[in-house]
C-alpha cells in the first residue's frame, strides 16, 4: 500500500511537471507575442478546433518525434546519445523533493504531498541542478565540433560564476529557518511577523531573494544568461542535435524554469502556505476566523503553490523577452564581483540581526 501511494505520487508529480513543461512552450510563444503586440502560434488545430493554439505543444512533439535521429559521423555515438538524457534526468529528479502541499489525511493515513521527504532536500535539488551541467559538457564534447565544445565550455564557466552565489544566497535562508528540509522550511513560513505579515522568505531575506533569483536565472541558461546556447549568434552546445534529442535539451530548459520557480516559491514565497491559513482554516489578523474542512484546506494549499509557481514561470519568460544577453565578462563580473559580495554581506547582516533579536 505504501509503495502504491509512492508510485501514485511519482506519477502525479511527473505528469504535473511534464504537462507544465509542454504548456510553458505554449506560454512562451503566447507571452512573447503579447509583449510584442503579436498574436502568436494559433494555427495548430484538431478538426478545425483551434483553441488559441493550445494544441501547438502536441504538434511540436509529433514533429520532433518523427524527425530523423541523426548522429554526426565524427561524433562519439554513445556519449552523443547519453548527453540529452543525462541533462533531462538530472532536472526531472529534482521534482521529487519539491513539497506540493501539507499532509493529506485519507482514512487515517497521512500522505505527505512530497515524493521524497529528505532531510537535505534543498541540497538535493541544488546538487541535481548543478549535475545538469554534465549533460551540457558531454554534449559539446561528444559532438566533436569545436564550436559546440566552446559552447559547453562557456556553460561550465557560467556555472562556476553563478553557482557559488546561488549557494551562498541560500545560507541566509537556512539561518533564518534552521532546516534543510523543505517541508519544515515551508512550515516555518506559516507563522506571522508582527501578527499580520506572513513570515515569508521575501520579507526576512530580501537581498537573499534578489541574489538567488539572479543566480537562478543564470541556472536556467535562458536569455539574459544564455551564453552556453547563444541561439542567435554564437553557436551553442547542442548544434549537432536534432529531433527528439534536441527536444530533450529544450524541455530541460523549460523544466529548469519550473524547478527554479518551485524553489523560489518554496524558499521565499511560503511554498504551499496561503497567508493567514493554518491547518483548520483562515485566522485573519483582524480577528475573524473561517474554518474549513481538511480537504478544502489541502486544495487551497495546492492551488496557492501552483499559482505562485505559475507567476514565477510567467516572470521568467517576461525577463527572457525583455533583456539582451549579457556579455561573457559581464556575467563573470556580475557573478564574482556583485552577487558573491552581496550574498556574503547578506549572511553577515542576517547573523547580526539574528544576534540582536535573540
Amino acid at each position: 500500500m505504501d509503495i502504491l501511494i509512492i508510485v501514485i505520487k511519482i506519477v502525479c508529480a511527473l505528469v504535473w511537471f511534464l504537462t507544465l513543461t509542454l504548456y510553458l512552450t505554449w506560454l512562451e510563444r503566447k507571452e512573447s507575442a503579447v509583449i510584442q503586440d503579436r498574436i502568436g502560434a494559433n494555427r495548430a488545430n484538431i478538426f478545425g478546433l483551434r483553441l488559441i493554439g493550445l494544441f501547438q505543444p502536441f504538434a511540436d512533439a509529433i514533429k520532433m518525434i518523427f524527425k530523423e535521429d541523426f548522429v554526426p559521423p565524427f561524433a562519439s555515438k554513445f556519449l552523443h546519445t547519453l548527453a540529452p538524457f543525462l541533462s533531462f534526468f538530472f532536472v526531472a529528479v529534482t521534482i521529487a523533493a519539491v513539497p506540493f502541499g501539507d499532509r493529506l489525511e485519507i482514512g487515517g493515513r497521512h500522505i505527505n504531498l512530497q515524493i521524497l521527504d529528505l532531510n537535505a532536500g534543498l541540497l538535493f535539488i541544488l546538487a541535481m541542478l548543478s549535475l545538469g551541467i554534465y549533460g551540457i559538457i558531454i554534449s559539446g564534447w561528444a559532438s566533436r565540433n569545436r564550436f559546440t565544445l566552446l559552447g559547453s565550455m562557456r556553460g561550465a564557466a557560467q556555472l562556476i560564476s553563478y553557482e557559488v552565489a546561488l549557494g551562498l544566497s541560500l545560507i541566509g535562508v537556512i539561518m533564518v529557518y534552521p532546516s534543510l528540509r523543505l517541508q519544515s522550511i515551508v512550515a516555518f513560513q506559516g507563522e506571522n511577523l508582527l501578527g499580520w505579515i506572513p513570515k515569508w522568505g521575501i520579507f526576512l531575506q530580501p537581498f537573499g531573494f534578489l541574489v538567488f533569483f539572479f543566480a537562478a536565472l543564470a541556472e536556467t541558461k535562458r536569455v539574459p544568461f544564455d551564453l552556453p546556447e547563444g541561439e542567435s549568434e554564437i553557436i551553442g552546445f547542442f548544434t549537432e542535435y536534432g529531433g527528439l534529442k534536441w527536444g530533450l535539451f529544450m524541455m530541460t530548459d523549460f523544466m529548469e524554469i519550473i524547478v527554479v520557480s518551485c524553489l523560489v516559491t518554496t524558499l521565499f514565497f511560503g511554498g504551499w502556505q496561503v497567508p493567514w491559513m493554518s491547518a483548520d482554516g483562515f485566522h485573519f489578523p483582524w480577528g475573524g476566523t473561517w474554518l474549513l474542512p481538511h480537504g478544502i484546506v489541502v486544495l487551497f494549499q495546492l492551488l496557492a503553490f501552483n499559482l505562485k509557481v505559475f507567476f514565477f514561470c510567467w516572470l521568467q519568460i517576461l525577463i527572457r523577452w525583455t533583456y539582451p544577453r549579457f556579455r561573457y565578462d559581464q556575467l563573470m563580473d556580475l557573478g564574482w564581483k556583485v552577487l558573491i559580495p552581496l550574498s556574503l554581506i547578506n549572511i553577515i547582516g542576517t547573523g547580526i540581526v539574528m544576534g540582536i533579536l535573540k
Partner: protein
Amino acid sequence: MIKALEYFVEIIKGSLITCRHFIVNMVFHTLKVLGIKTKRKGAVTIQYPEEKKEIASRHRSLHRLMRREDGKPRCVSCMLCVTVCPSECIAVEATEDPDPEIQKIPAKFNIDMSRCCFCGFCVEACPEDAIRMDTAKIEIAEYARKDLIYGLDKLLG
C-alpha cells in the same frame, strides 16, 4: 556604486515596459473574447489568408492588357515595353492587323512573372496605355515555373 544603482533602475524600467505591453494587450484580448468591441486591438497582426490588408490604389500588382472597344488588344507591338524592361521578362511577337490605322497587333505577348520585378517601367513606357498594373492581384504563386509565364489569354483575362 551610484552608476550600478542607475543601471539596476534602468533594468527594472525595461521590464516594466514589457510588462505594460503585456497587461495592456491582454486587456484588449480579454475584451475581444468577452465580445466587447474596442477601437484598439490587442495585436497588430493581420491573419493573412483569412484577413487581407487593403491594397493601396497606386500599388503595382499583376499586369493586365487593355482591350479596344471591339475587343482586340490595344497593344500595337511597338516593343517599347520590351526595350525598357530591366529584367527582360517581356517577349512580344507582332503580326499584321488588317486595319491600316493600327498596322500591328501582338501575336504573342508573354510576361515571365518569375523574372518580373514589378518596377512598372512597361506601364510608363507604353504609348497606347495598353498595359496596366492595377489588378490588385498579388498572389501569383504556381507549382511549376512554366505556369508563371503569362500569355495573352491570361493577361487579357
